[in-house]
């Protein structure tokens, strides 16, 4: 399982990248492997508000639908529309293929996220 060092993680298997004051969300390698083949991603819209710990997107595998939670709160500034037509990109590379970018509401929430090292322990 890949766990890039520069990212932050949640216990519910999402990753966060902090870049230019914005946060980028995706799901981890472990998550995509557990889900199996992704066949549909229900994406939110730009300027939607997301709340830490609450569902903002749904990823559907052949078998089932899984809610994807926001690791931190904020307002969506960009949605990865590529996933609409090619949901399988999540399986191909879950770190390259992000889901949304948000404007962070409260920077202190980043402190609650897991480091790569802590996340790796969790999935062992």
């Amino acid at each position, binding site marked *: 399982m890949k766990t890039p060092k520069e990212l932050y993680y949640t216990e519910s298997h999402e990753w966060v990248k902090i870049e230019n004051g914005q946060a980028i969300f995706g799901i981890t390698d472990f998550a995509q492997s557990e889900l199996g*083949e992704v*066949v549909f991603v*229900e994406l939110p819209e730009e300027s939607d508000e997301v709340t830490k710990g609450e569902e903002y997107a749904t990823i*559907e595998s*052949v*078998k089932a639908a899984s809610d994807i939670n926001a690791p931190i709160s904020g307002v969506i500034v960009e949605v990865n529309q590529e996933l609409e037509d090619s949901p399988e990109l999540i399986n191909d590379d879950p770190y390259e293929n992000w889901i949304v970018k948000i404007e962070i509401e409260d920077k202190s929430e980043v402190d609650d996220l897991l480091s790569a090292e802590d996340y790796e322990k969790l999935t062992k």
Partner: protein
Amino acid sequence: MKKTVLYDHHVKLGAKMVEFAGFEMPIQYSSIKEEHHAVRHDAGLFDVSHMGEIKVIGEDATRFLDHVYTNNVNAMTANQILYGFFLYENGGVVDDLLVYKVNDEHYLLVVNASNTEKDYRWLLKQSDGFDVSIINASDEYSELALQGPKAEAMLQKHTDYALDSLKFFTFDDVQLENAEFLVSRTGYTGEDGFEIYGDHEAVKVLFKKLLLEHHDLKPCGLGARDTLRFEVALPLYGHEISETITPLEAGYKFAVKMDKGDFIGKDALQKQLEEGLTRRIVGLKILDKGIVREGADVYVGDEKVGHVTTGYLSPSLNKAVALALVDKPHDKRGTELSINVRKRFLKARVVKKKLYTK
């Protein structure tokens, strides 16, 4: 939790194991989609040892089964198989099952794993006044399903028995390699194929041998088993049929013989026929982007008119489709319905129940 004899082998093959009906079963090996396509185009091999086997033996076996079963047992010939239902008095389904006729006084019933105990106890309760022994033989058998257009050619390599003479819904004792099996031309995928029953060790050996010798044969899990049966509208207990959904509502009238004499639940079905059905299982094609799943509510405007019983992005069609229980008159082909998925409503159209045809 119970394990089938192939458990270690599944793990070795990299299967993802899940709990199903008290068994640890493979849900998928490589990918549900790939396994699904293997069965539609080549062949797939399933461990279905969790299925229940119940023997009904005795002088009154035929008369007893006709009393508890919706299909016509008295009309069966030896080595024939019939699909049908056990019903409650109210017409709800105890289970759907296959009845294998060995002879007039000996039948083998193959039932859903999740219902085996319930069926067994229910049969015992109904057997007062009949000279029959009812034996839950589930622990004696392991079972494989070899399914797909190449199934016959593959299995033929392992036996002298002329498999092309084994017709759909019949069975026979067949020697495969050096062991005896009960082999039936049946399945739960909509493809040609066989279900193979034998003792544990023999099934274990056969499973490995088949996979070793046929490179276009894929081990398949319960995930593909469900997408395959769904596409061809084979019902799954607890979904399209249940304690509260009758076989008539599910569209399985062909397996309910109203003219054969009395059976448990017949009066309730008769009443349903006379009064007319109020709802029916239909196929749905989802017109908007998205996938609808079991349990999603079906609407016409603000009015709730049913629910989804199974829903997938169909691997064969590469389209989102579903089976749903829908109130009349909204069950008519072509009707536009709306399905509530989380916060959205997806448009859908009623289509025929058999969603995939070759």
